[in-house]
Structures are given as C-alpha cells and as structure tokens.
C-alpha cells in the first residue's frame, strides 16, 4: 500500500536544507578535526556524545529500522530480546570488556583492519587473508540489506517503483563512497545520529498516544492474538505480545527457533565480531573515553532498535483501529462477540460489481482476519444477494504479508507527511553512515588484507589505492545486484542475520582468544575460523531451509527437499550459529591444546603487562 505518495515543494525544501546542513558540517569537519584518528593525533578527546553516537550510527541502519522493525510487525514483541542483547552485549559487554583490550592490542600491533589485527596477533598471513576474503565476499550481503531497506522506504513514501528508488539509492551511495566520503566524519555522523534519535522519540510517543497510551496499546494488541494469520499460527505464533510457542520435535515450534536463533542470537552475539565496529575501538584515545561512551551508546541503541521493534508490533493495532476500510465476504466467524471474522477480501470493479481479490502468491481469493464494523446486503456480478462486511485488519494484511513494508507503510499512513520526509532523511543518514563503514571495510579488506598480503614469493606488496577503489566499486555493484534480484520474505533481516552470524562463527573464538588468552595458537585460531565458516556455509547451503531453498543446491542433492534434515522437525529452522559457534570454540581449544604456543617474545609484545 502506498500511503501519501506525492512529493511537495516543502518536502524538497526540507530535503535540500538537510543536505546543505550535512554538507556544511562535513566541510567544517574537513577544515579541522574530522575523524577519530584526527582527535587522537591532535591529542584531543572526542566528546562522549560524539564517540557514542557515531559508533551507534555505524551499527544502526535501515536494516535495523525497516528490516527488523518489519520482522517485529510480523512476529511481535519477542524481538525486544534483540534490543536487550544489543544494549547488554553490543554496548555494555563490548565497551567494557572488549573495547580497551582491542584498543591496546591494536595500537601495539599497529593493526588498522580487523583481519590485520587477527593476522598480526597470530603472526599469520593466512588468517589475515582468510578474514579479508570472508569480509570481501559477504559484506555486500549486509550492504544489500541496508540498500533494500532504504529503497523500500523511499518507494512507499514517495510512491515510486522499488527499482527506481534502488537506482537513486545506488547513485547516492556511489556519489558518497567513491570520491572519498568513506572517512567517518564524526560531526556529521553525530548530527545525523541525533536527528535519528529525535525522530525515534517522536515516532514512539506518537504511536503510543494514537493507541490511547502504553498499557492500552499493549492490551489492544494482546487481544488481537486471534487475528494472527493461520500460516504463522501453525508455526507457533501466539500473538504480537507473546513469545512464540517453545518446544522441539514439531513444526508448531519452528517460529521459536527462527526468532530466537536467527534473529535474536545471530545478530545479538554477532555484533561482537563485526569488523567495522571492532576497528572503531582502536580509534578511541583511552579507556576513559570508552567508559564515558557507554551510557549514551546504550540510550541511543535503546531508541534506535527498541522504537522500531515496538512500533512494528504496535502497527498491527494501529491499522486495526485506524487503517483504511477493507471489504469482503465472511468465510468463518473468529469471535462473534468481538465482531472478528475471516473474510474473503473483495473490491468493486469498474462496473461497480464486487469481485474477489486474487492473491498473487496463491492465485486464490485473498483472505484476512477483519474487525468487522459494517454489514450491508449487496449483489454480486451474477445478481446474487450476499452480506458484504467492512472492517479493518492487521498491518500484515495491508502490506500483503511483506514484512519489509510494514514500517514504511505505517509511517506513510499514520504520520504527517513532513515527518515521513524527516524520517526518510534520518534513514538515509543511518544508511549512509553504515554503508560508508561497510565499504571502507570492503576496500581495506581487498587492498590491505588481500592484495598486499597475497604477494609474490611470500613477500608483501605495496598498498594499492586502485585495488581498494575497484573493490569498493565491485562491492557496490554486487550489493545493488543482490538488492535488485532477491526480494523474499523479510529479506533485509535475513541478510543481516546471515552476515552477523557468519562473522560470529568465523571470527569470535579467534578474536576472544586473541584478546584474553596467551595459550591460543595460530593453528587453533585458523582451525576455529575454518570450522566456524565451514559449518555455517554447510548449514546455510544444505540444512537451513529458507536460505538453502533460495540457493537451490539442496534441492538437487535431495531430489526436491528444502533441507537435508527436512524430515526432522525444527532442525531446518535452527540457525547455523547454534551449531557452528560451539564447534568453532571447541576447535580453538582442542587444536591450541596440542599445538605449539606463541613465542614468549611475541606474547611480551602483545601483553607487556602480563609478561614483565
């Protein structure tokens, strides 16, 4: 559904003013202190707000707001566990436990990329090359998620085709990252981050107040549990304010395993091993700066993820109360007392006759649960009398089941148009700050970690600017191609979860071992990376049915099934992280136990305080 597609001259003025303000701040920044490294070189301390918000702006993007907000609209408030993990792990644990050791070790080793950090810590070119290759190959998937999120929002808000929006988005991204906009300009990141935070506060307050308050809004949504579409109920969906049904051995528990393992754990834990975020810790001047950034980072992440997850869920209640009227013929009463019925949706054709709406997915008449508010007797095309009912439904009905459109559709339908424009700009800012760090990471992975390290006769090569730029252009083309071709159920969140999960399983054991253990060996780290990545890819290709079916290899292997474990309920819904991460940790421990530890000299260089 497209809410209010027109673009007025006021909207254009707002956009231009915003871009001018951002450009002016960027220009001011370029004249003096601009990046975190500049602060450090100048011996100055970045304000905690600048440090925390620019970190948060790198972390949060359209993927979190549109993608995961949409998933909350689909699956409900169980997604709030992800916000909890984002704060508890992504901020508290990351900043207090990982930040300072990463910063200190990174500076000692002279590492400037995450693969270089691992490579120097373990004195292994192979580790650096493997990590660089993994980032270069899979980061475009995450970039595609961010681009799809922005493009879907733009297409809904301004009433343009998705393909046109994606093209515009790609051009803006190219204009931003190719000529050198990759350097994180902290002032502009902070300005954009603060606009995002303000937009989220407004969105949350507006949503709750339009539903009559916090408790009233939640209560209304709780009582809508019987309107959950049947396919979701069959997977264990028990309402938008309830966790999915938990258990093992039946398809009625699939949703719990999808939500908890893929959406919540994959991303919640995966954040610790995100290359572009880990590098950020090295740009901090001291432990004190990290400590001071914790509170602002936590509040920022709470607003940026908590708001879309709550609003995504509550949008179902808003559409049920205020959405456009839908019409149809009752198929089954759900709750006669509450006037809820399963309705075959109908529309009037040009001749004025009521005809069934055909679902493009099933090629059968579309059905939806409605809160019925009108009943009239009318005639169909064959002059037969029937009772036409009118009423409203959940957000899912209005977006035809496409979760990625829930947040854009809600903003477009519920909020003033000027807010939609500001929200779009906030999203664009969120996307750009994330994308710039993604492409910075892709460029350095290709240039420093692959090209320089894969030198002839084992010798490193000189850094190549051309290789970095080519890698960025190539990464951009791949990301746009993925966004253009892959349009499936909640794809934004799934792409993000795949990338975060892959990073966790491939990097986390080696990263943690490198920071905190002197006994972990080069062979142990390399084995853990290979095992983590190998098991994850195996699981994605052959076991996890949604991803495996989309890739297509499993159907050839099994003769048409979507998972090699298709006959074992719940296994095809389990995320790779559940199997691959423990396997990678085990590999790290076992192989390190039987291989030669690093030299005392290297350990003294890495950890002088522990080896006086």
């Amino acid at each position, binding site marked *: 559904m497209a809410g209010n597609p027109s673009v007025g001259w006021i909207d254009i003025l707002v956009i231009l003013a915003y871009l001018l303000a951002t450009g002016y701040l960027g220009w001011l920044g370029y004249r003096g202190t601009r990046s975190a490294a500049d602060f*450090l070189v100048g011996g100055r301390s970045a304000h*905690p707000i600048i440090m925390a918000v620019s970190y948060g702006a790198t972390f949060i993007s359209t993927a979190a707001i549109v993608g995961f907000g949409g998933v909350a609209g689909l699956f*409900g408030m169980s997604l709030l566990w992800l916000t909890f993990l984002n704060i508890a792990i992504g901020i*508290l644990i990351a900043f207090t436990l990982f930040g300072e050791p990463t910063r200190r070790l990174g500076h*000692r080793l002279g590492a400037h990329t995450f693969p270089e950090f691992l490579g120097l810590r373990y004195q292994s070119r192979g580790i650096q090359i493997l990590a660089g290759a993994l980032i270069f190959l899979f980061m475009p998937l995450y970039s595609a998620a961010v681009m799809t999120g922005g493009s879907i929002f733009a297409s809904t808000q301004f009433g343009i085709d998705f393909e046109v929006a994606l093209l515009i988005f790609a051009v803006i991204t190219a204009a931003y990252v190719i000529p050198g906009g990759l350097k994180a300009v902290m002032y502009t990141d902070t300005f954009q981050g603060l606009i995002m935070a303000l937009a989220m506060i407004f969105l949350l307050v507006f949503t709750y107040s339009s539903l009559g308050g916090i408790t009233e809004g*939640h209560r209304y949504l709780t009582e809508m549990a019987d309107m959950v579409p049947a396919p979701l109920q069959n997977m264990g969906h028990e309402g938008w304010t309830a966790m999915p049904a938990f258990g093992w051995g039946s398809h009625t528990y699939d949703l719990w395993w999808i939500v908890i393992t893929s959406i919540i754990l994959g991303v919640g834990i995966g954040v610790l091993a995100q290359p572009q975020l880990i590098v950020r810790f090295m*740009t901090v001047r001291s432990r004190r700066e990290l400590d001071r950034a914790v509170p602002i980072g936590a509040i920022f992440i709470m607003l940026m993820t908590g708001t879309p997850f709550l609003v995504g869920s509550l949008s179902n209640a808003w559409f049920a109360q205020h959405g456009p009227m839908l019409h149809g013929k009752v198929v089954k009463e759900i709750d006669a007392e509450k006037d809820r019925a399963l309705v075959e949706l109908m529309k009037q054709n040009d001749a004025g006759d009521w005809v069934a709406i055909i679902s493009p997915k099933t090629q059968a008449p579309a059905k939806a649960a409605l809160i019925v508010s009108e009943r009239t007797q009318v005639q169909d095309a064959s002059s037969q009398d029937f009772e036409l009912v009118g009423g409203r439904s959940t957000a899912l009905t209005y977006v035809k089941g496409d979760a990625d459109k829930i947040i854009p559709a809600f903003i477009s339908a519920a909020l003033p148009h000027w807010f939609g424009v500001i929200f779009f700009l906030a999203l664009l800012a969120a996307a750009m700050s994330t994308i710039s760090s993604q492409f910075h990471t892709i460029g350095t992975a290709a240039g420093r970690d692959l090209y320089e390290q894969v030198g002839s006769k084992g010798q490193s090569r000189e850094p190549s600017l051309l290789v970095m730029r080519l890698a960025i252009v190539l990464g951009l083309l791949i990301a746009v191609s993925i966004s253009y071709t892959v349009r499936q159920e909640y794809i934004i969140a799934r792409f993000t979860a795949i990338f975060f999960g892959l990073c966790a399983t491939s990097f986390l054991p080696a990263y943690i071992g490198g920071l905190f253990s002197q006994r972990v060996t080069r062979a142990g780290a390399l084995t853990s990376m290979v095992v983590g990545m190998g098991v994850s890819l195996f699981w994605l290709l052959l076991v996890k049915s949604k991803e495996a079916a989309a890739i297509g290899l499993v159907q050839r292997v099994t003769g048409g099934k979507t998972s090699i474990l298709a006959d074992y309920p719940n296994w095809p819904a389990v995320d790779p992280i559940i199997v691959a991460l423990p396997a990678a940790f085990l590999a790290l421990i076992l192989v390190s136990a039987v291989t030669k530890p690093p030299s005392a000299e290297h350990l003294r260089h890495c950890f002088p305080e522990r080896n006086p």
Partner: protein
Amino acid sequence: MIGIDDPFVLIAYFGIIASAVASLIYGLVRRNAARDDVTPEDRQWALDEKKVDDDI
C-alpha cells in the same frame, strides 16, 4: 502488567530499561576512574590510521 501477559516479553521490555539504567550508572561511576593518557604508541597508530584513511 502494562497490557502484556507473557512474562518473557515483559522481562525483555523491562530488561531493556534495566540495562540502559545499568549503562548510565556504569558511565557515571567510571566517569573519571580510568587513566586518560595518550602514549607515543597510540599517537603513532593514529598517524598511520590517518594515512590509511587519506589513501582511501
């Protein structure tokens, strides 16, 4: 409570607020607890980082 009946969703809801409050307290308590020295190692790293950034 607050219109949500599922205790696990309520724990997540209030857990978010509790973890944000814990972060606030942590930031206040540790505000000046750690040292704020920039070592020559740190400065050298930053100079190299600037070069990497400028290259790109």
